[in-house]
């Protein structure tokens, strides 16, 4: 197979579970063989779905004085930006914070669940391609660090309580990173090809 960073053709032997093959010239990761890749990714994506719903349904921070507490979810944050006339920024945060992460989970389930069950679904190849492109624009882990920074900034000003959703976001960050490390697109392509 060819290295996608330097184009060199590499001979790749069958990989033992958990092994990684690297390009002999530029050291780029060519492919990996995560054990039970499809099953693990499916389980993690289902957990992500649950955490995503929790994270977006509840407040992640409560802030204010005892008589005047404000709570916020990511969606209400986007709405306040929009109402201030910052529509561009609101749209951007909406994309990378809510739409893309949600889209990634839904697309992932659409690909993984039928693969696990051995069924064929329409447009599966296009959905796999789309999923690989969406991945870069889903920024849950950046948002989690954002919550931390905001927490430290505000803690000095008034009472500040982290909500359920802050923990859900932190766990979502872990399940998504874990999914990424368990996913090997080559295995998905091979399984898809075996079905048709």
């Amino acid at each position, binding site marked *: *197979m*060819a290295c*996608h*960073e*330097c*184009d*060199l*053709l590499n*001979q790749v032997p069958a990989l033992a579970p958990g092994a990684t093959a690297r390009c*002999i*010239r*530029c*050291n*780029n990761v060519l492919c990996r063989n995560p054990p039970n890749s499809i099953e693990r990714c499916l389980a993690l994506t289902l957990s992500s779905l649950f955490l995503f719903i929790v994270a977006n349904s509840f407040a992640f*921070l409560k*802030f*204010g*004085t005892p008589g*005047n507490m*404000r709570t*916020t979810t*990511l969606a*209400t*944050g*986007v709405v*306040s*930006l929009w109402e*201030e006339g*910052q529509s*561009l*920024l609101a749209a*951007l*945060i909406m994309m*990378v*914070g809510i739409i893309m992460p949600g889209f990634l989970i839904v697309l992932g389930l659409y690909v993984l669940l039928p693969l696990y069950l051995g069924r064929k679904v329409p447009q599966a*190849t*296009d959905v*796999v*391609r789309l999923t*690989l*492109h969406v991945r*870069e624009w889903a*920024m849950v882990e*950046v*948002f989690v*660090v*954002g*919550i931390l*920074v*905001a927490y*430290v*900034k*505000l803690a000095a*000003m*008034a009472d500040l309580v982290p909500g359920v959703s802050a923990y859900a976001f932190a766990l979502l960050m872990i399940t998504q990173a874990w999914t990424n490390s368990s996913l090997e*697109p*080559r295995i998905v*392509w091979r399984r898809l*090809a075996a079905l048709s």
Partner: protein
Amino acid sequence: MSAPMLTAREAGFAVCHDCGQLVRLAGDHHHCPRCHAAVHLRRPNSIARSWALLIAAAICYIPANVLPVTVVDALGKTQGDTIMSGVLYFLHHGDWPLALVIFTASVAVPMAKIAMLMYLLVSSQRRSVSRSVDRTRVYRVVELIGRWSMLDMFVVTILVALVQLGFFATMHAGAGAPYFGAVVVLTMLAAQQFDPRLIWDAVEARDDR
């Protein structure tokens, strides 16, 4: 390795950008038989597109740093904060860990990214053959760190939503904020357009001579 170093291009194959399938080249228009993506030997107009996006990012970078990203109305007074003044505020209050996080994500990362991409583009255009492995590594770093400069925009969103204490303090997003968001998106797109194989094409061109 005793086998000769042969690239996919020299063997007459193109690699699918999306799924990595090797596609034999014949004629000029191709689609990947496996995932149906358009297949090119190299990303089309990689350097020109990457430059265009990068220059746009560099232009937006100026208002992103000069204009305030947050504006606070407190007790009748209005105060705008740029990214740098935010960092300095925490530094003066002895909160250097936070100052360091914000400085890294909002100042160092975007600047390093623009500088690294410029270096990659200039060296590829000049068909430089030195330090190819290091330059490929630089490319990987650019791809890895790009998304983290979005951090400050998330923080601004959270602050605007929460700090609404009426007369005491109300926070708004400043005029610089959308420019900052634009810098993040444009540099990410510029990095996607750059084709790291151009670094290695120059090495092969020299070896053939």
